[in-house]
C-alpha cells in the first residue's frame, strides 16, 4: 500500500535527481550558517533549517523566512563537508512554497519570481519597468522614493530601456514552454 511521503521526502523529490536525499548526510557542523552572508537576517540558520526538514517540521519550515532570504550565492554549497547542495535545498523549499502557496503575504520574493516568469513567457526577455511593479508597491514610502530616484539617475544615463524587447520566434518559444508545463501537469 502506498504511504504518503513525508515532508522531507517531498523536499528531496524536488531536488535535481542525482542529488538524491541528502538530508541524512548532514553532520550539523554549522559551516553553512557560519558562511552564509545573509544569516543574521534569517529566522532560522541554514543548519537549523536542514535539521527541521530532517525532522519533518513542515509548518515551521514553511513559516520561516530563511529560504526566501537565500541570495543563491552557493557559498554554503561549496563548503559543505557532506556535499549537500544547500542552495539547491533552498530552491526546492521555495518551489514547494510557491506551488502550495504557503508563503506569507509580506514577502516580496515569490511575487517577484512569478512576475519575472510571466514577463519572460510574454516576450522572451526581461524588462525592468514591468518587474519593478512586483516589488515597488510593497515598499515603504522611503524605499519607494529612493528606488524612483535611483531609477531616474539610471534613466538619465541611458541605462533603463524605454520599450521592452521581444524575441522573433515568440510563438515557437511559447510552444516550447507549453511542452514542459503540459507534460508536467499530465504526469
Amino acid at each position: 500500500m502506498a504511504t504518503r511521503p513525508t515532508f522531507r521526502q517531498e523536499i528531496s523529490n524536488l531536488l535535481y535527481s542525482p542529488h538524491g536525499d541528502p538530508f541524512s548526510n548532514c553532520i550539523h557542523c554549522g559551516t553553512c550558517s557560519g558562511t552564509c552572508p545573509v544569516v543574521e537576517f534569517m529566522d532560522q540558520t541554514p543548519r537549523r533549517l536542514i535539521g527541521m526538514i530532517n525532522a519533518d517540521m513542515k509548518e515551521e519550515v514553511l513559516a520561516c523566512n530563511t529560504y526566501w532570504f537565500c541570495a543563491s550565492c552557493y557559498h554554503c554549497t561549496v563548503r559543505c563537508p557532506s556535499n549537500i547542495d544547500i542552495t539547491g535545498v533552498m530552491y526546492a523549499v521555495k518551489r514547494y512554497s510557491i506551488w502550495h502557496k504557503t508563503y506569507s503575504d509580506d514577502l516580496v520574493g515569490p511575487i517577484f519570481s512569478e512576475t519575472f516568469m510571466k514577463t519572460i513567457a510574454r516576450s522572451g526577455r526581461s524588462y525592468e519597468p514591468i518587474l519593478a511593479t512586483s516589488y515597488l508597491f510593497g515598499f515603504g514610502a522611503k524605499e519607494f522614493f529612493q528606488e524612483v530616484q535611483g531609477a531616474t539617475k539610471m534613466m538619465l544615463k541611458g541605462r533603463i530601456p524605454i520599450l521592452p524587447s521581444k524575441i522573433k520566434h515568440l510563438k515557437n518559444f511559447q510552444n516550447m514552454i507549453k511542452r514542459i508545463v503540459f507534460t508536467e501537469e499530465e504526469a
Partner: protein
Amino acid sequence: MKKYAYFPGCSLEKMALSYHDSALETTRTLGVELEELEDWNCCGATTYFHLDEILANTLVARNLAIAEKQGLDFVAPCSACYKNAYFTNKYIKEDAELAEHINYALEADHLQLSGDLTVHHLIEVFVDEIGTEEIKNKVSNSLNELRVAPYYGCQIVRPRKNGENVEDPQFFEELLAAMGADAIDFAYKTRCCGGSLLLTNRHAALAMIRLLLQNALDSGAEVIATTCPLCQVNLECYQTQVNEEFGTDYSVPILYFTQLLGLALGTSPKKLGFGKELISATPFLSKHLVKEAK
C-alpha cells in the same frame, strides 16, 4: 580569428551597455570575434529556478542549442547567465532522461541540444583562451599601479565546476596585473553582493553591499572591478542608499573589468562606455594612466 557565440543577456541590452561595448571593443583588439547569438531569450537569472527546475533548464537550453546549431562555443558576460548555461549544458550531457525531456520541448523551436559545446564566462576568454602573457604584450597604456579590488562575486566561481580553487581564485588578479594595475588583496572578493535580494530584502542587501565597499576601501582600493552586471549595479547604483541607511560617505567607482582592460589597450574611453557611470572614476584614472587615452 577565433569566434564565439556571444550571449549578452538582458542586462547588457541597456543597464550594462558599457559592459557590452567594452567587451566587444577589447575582444576585437585582441583578435577574438564575439558573434551575438541569434534571437536569444532571457536565461532566467536566479528566479526561474524558484518556480520550476525543468522549465528553467529548458529556457537556458534554447540559447545553448542556438549556439550549437552555429557550431560555436558559448560565452556569457554575466555570472548568473554563465552559471545557468554551464550547468544546464553539463546536465544535458550527463542525464539522458533530462536531455530527452528538454529536447522534446526544444523541437517546438526546431532546435536540439547535445551538450557538446563549451561554456565560458567572458573573463575566461581573456584569461584562458587569449592568455595574460599575450594581453600584457598588447598593453600600450599601462594602468600604472592603479589599485583595483578584483571583485569576483559569487556565481562565476560557485558552484564548483572542476576541482578549481573556489576559496581564493587568482585569475582576476593575474588579468589585472597584465594591465599594469595593482590588484589589491581583497578578503571579500568572492562574498555575495546580495543579488536580487536588493529588490526582495532590501535591508539585508544594503548591509551586504556596505560590507563589501568598506572591505575594499580598508584594503586600499581606488576602484572596484566587476565581472557581472548585477554586481556592478548593486555596488554602484545603491551606494547613495547605503549612505542614507548607514550614515556613511561612500563614493567608490565600480567598473567592468573590460573597461579597465580597454583603457590599458589604448582604446578611447567613449568606446568603452565611460560616461554612463553614476560615480566617476576619472580622478583615479587620470592620476594613473601614463598617457592620455586616445
